[in-house]
């Protein structure tokens, strides 16, 4: 898609704001609509747009598929780990009250961390699936 100047310029202009918006949905999810799932898909959509216009090679250099497999597992691990930490601190599994000295504070912390884990897994899984499809199409073209 190197010849499509309009698409390239527009993509360059809007990818960064979409990414910022995704981060806003992620970390402002306690106060406004949104959360990990929504932020994850919006973030992934921006990266997919980048891949469509600038090619899978540049996208793979920016975010390697191997790293995505690690972050996908890390997201689930962060979520479940928060539950285990709550247990170690004397609460029940996923009982965020135990995370800090006062219950409301613990809930705030728990929600933020858990939503981050959700977002991380969603971004990684969607991008991995997209890479898998894009990679196969390219290989077929070449052979």
């Amino acid at each position, binding site marked *: 898609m190197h010849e499509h100047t309009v698409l390239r310029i527009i993509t360059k202009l809007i990818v960064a704001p979409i990414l910022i918006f995704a981060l806003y949905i992620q970390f402002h999810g306690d106060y406004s609509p949104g959360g990990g799932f929504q932020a994850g898909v919006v973030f992934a959509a921006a990266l997919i747009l980048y891949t469509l216009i600038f090619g899978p090679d540049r996208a793979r250099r920016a975010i390697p598929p191997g790293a995505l497999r690690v972050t996908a597992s890390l997201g689930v691990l962060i979520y479940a780990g928060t539950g285990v930490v709550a247990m170690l601190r004397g609460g029940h599994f996923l009982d965020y009250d135990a995370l800090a000295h006062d219950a409301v504070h613990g809930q705030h912390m728990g929600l933020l961390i858990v939503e981050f884990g959700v977002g991380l*897994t969603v971004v990684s899984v969607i991008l991995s699936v997209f890479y898998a499809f894009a990679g*196969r*199409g390219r290989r077929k073209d070449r052979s």
Partner: protein
Amino acid sequence: MTTDIVLNVVLLCFLVVTGLAIARLRNLFPVAMLTGLYSLLSASLFQLLDAVDVALTEAAVGAGVVTVLFLATFGLTRAREKPVPRSRTVIGLVVTSLTGAALFYASLDMPHFGAADTPVQTHPIRERYLQTMQEEVDIPNAVTAVLASYRGYDTLGEVTVIFTAGIGVLMLLGVSRRRNPEDRHDDHRGDS
């Protein structure tokens, strides 16, 4: 209120038209585009119903990611629907009509939109989620609080499902394992 009704009717009409167009088209590239449009219209409807979370997800996944995945799939398979014998289209029409009629009949039993005496409004759990939550969790967005705190197990399950689905796709498409040897093989074949 009237603008809401007008917008709802217009969007639903667009949905029906898009659905009919998808059913009629044989070339699958425009079908993928129209599926994206269908998702975007659904997202607008969700937005009108004040379900902003669902609208965000539908717009990003349905209109964005899934459309791109469809197009990527057409790179691997045929992008044209095979002609279907007439007898089978008739069976399909009958099954669809029956299902639609059953759903329509079931919808007559549903409470009216925004009615005050539904279980959603009167069940005690509502007070727990919307009022006690403000003391226990103290964040303005009740959806996030219910999703991640009161139903934390449920959401952990959902994340695990997404993770497992991703692993499943990667295993089926086998990109990670086969890429290096096969690339070398392809290059070799190209040289000879």
